[in-house]
């Protein structure tokens, strides 16, 4: 995006090399290399089952990998889920927004947002509350703080989920199809909040099927097919001039409807 700059010489916040992941006998990620620079917005596209979710879930250790190397925010993650100390530290620095929101239904909107800062960062109740209210205001749901998630629309819930992740002041945000579970009329409000975040310089890795949004917000687009990165580059390049046949046929399928 024009008003953001990415310093590609800076130390990458995600450094993934030759990462392999199996679910039993299913080889889901094959020698994946991925490097994300601070401030960069990377969008991952690909067909259903190609491994997009698995890939970003490896970054915060929700999935274990079997071989390769992975460093996040300067901390090494070991294969097979070893070294859980680094893992928890990484998770405090990496926020995630899920397709199904995964808000805590037994807590109010505000408590959803303050829980982790209080328990993990040891923020005082007052301090956590101030941060929560500021973030809720920012995503446009300040007046719903006392409600429970089930009392909100899908779009509102997803914006709460965003505020909840941001409350930990993450250095990297992961999004796994954040708008796929939303009614069409609510997609825009969530994308707007994400655009705003990108504009402020947040480093983001986004899995999405929203191609227009991807083109607009991404610094780099990655196309993944059957667990392999087939093509990557600037959005204009990948969308307008894809080099690989696989990418071409995928794009022609998703862009025609």
């Amino acid at each position, binding site marked *: 995006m024009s008003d953001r700059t990415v310093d590609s010489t800076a130390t990458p916040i995600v450094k993934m090399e030759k990462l392999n992941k199996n679910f039993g006998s299913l080889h889901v990620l094959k020698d994946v290399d991925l490097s994300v620079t601070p401030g960069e917005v990377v969008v991952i596209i690909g067909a259903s089952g190609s491994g997009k979710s698995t890939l970003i879930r490896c970054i*915060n*250790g*929700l999935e274990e990998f079997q071989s390769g190397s992975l460093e996040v925010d300067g901390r090494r993650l070991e294969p097979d889920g070893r070294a859980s100390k680094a893992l*928890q*530290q990484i*998770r*405090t*620095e*990496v*926020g*995630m927004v*899920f397709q*199904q929101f*995964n*808000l*805590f*239904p*037994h*807590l*109010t909107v505000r408590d959803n947002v303050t*829980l*982790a800062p209080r*328990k*993990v960062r040891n923020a005082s109740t007052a301090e956590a509350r101030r941060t929560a209210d500021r973030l809720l205001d920012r995503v446009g749901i300040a007046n719903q703080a006392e409600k*429970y*998630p*089930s009392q909100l629309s899908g779009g509102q819930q997803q914006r709460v*989920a965003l505020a*909840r*992740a941001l409350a*930990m002041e993450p250095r990297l945000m992961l999004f796994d199809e954040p708008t796929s579970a939303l009614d069409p009329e609510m997609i825009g409000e969530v994308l707007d909040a994400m655009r705003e975040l990108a504009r402020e310089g947040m480093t983001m890795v986004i899995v999405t099927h929203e191609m227009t949004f991807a083109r607009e917000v991404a610094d780099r687009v990655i196309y993944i097919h059957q667990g392999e990165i087939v093509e990557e580059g600037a959005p204009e390049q990948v969308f307008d001039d894809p080099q690989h046949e696989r990418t071409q046929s995928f794009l022609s399928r998703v862009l025609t409807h």
Partner: protein
Amino acid sequence: MDSNFDFNWEAAFQSIPYLLKGIPFTLMISFGGLAIGFVIGMIFGLMRLSRAGWLRWPAIAYIEIFRGTPVLVQVLFIFYGLPQLLGGPINAVVAGIAAIAVNSGAYISEIVRGGVQSIERGQREAGLSLGLSRTQTFRYIIWPQGFRRMIPSLGNQGIISIKDTSLFAVIGVGELVRQGQIYIATTFRALEVYLMVALLYLAITLTLSLLLRLLERKGLVGQ
């Protein structure tokens, strides 16, 4: 017509003060046993969920053994059998509490397991992805939600265990049924007395049902 119907209301009412003396024992054994059973259930229910075999298998064995044998046999074993091992008698009330504890504990383990397992995977992932430890995720996210879902089953188990204590008349605990038996032995009014005994059980279990209904309704907020 010479009717066999011979229900003596006076005898029924007269038995009540005597039967009421059994209620503290019934309540003490049921709720004492259930309280311990709940602690057992939490521990073994979570062990049952563990990925580590050395935690899971003892829990499975415990659950199968105490679910698969009658509570009457369990209390007889504790009251008559254990003293042989321990070398001294066991108080009947203590034996009753212990029997309810181990028996309800086995069922509550399964209730706890089911409640915890019923929470969607995404809840745990959301907690972990925020940087909460596994223990914190369990304590603040999984358990509060799981516990709400356990309430109906826990209530059910409570009612079953309360009724189970009626079997403990055999070891001479002065609970409701035992009081009834003693009273009948001197008055020969089995019909009236057992009816009153039944009604007193019903009063206890209905009260419990009512309390649980209230608790459930309160817990509905936010679900």
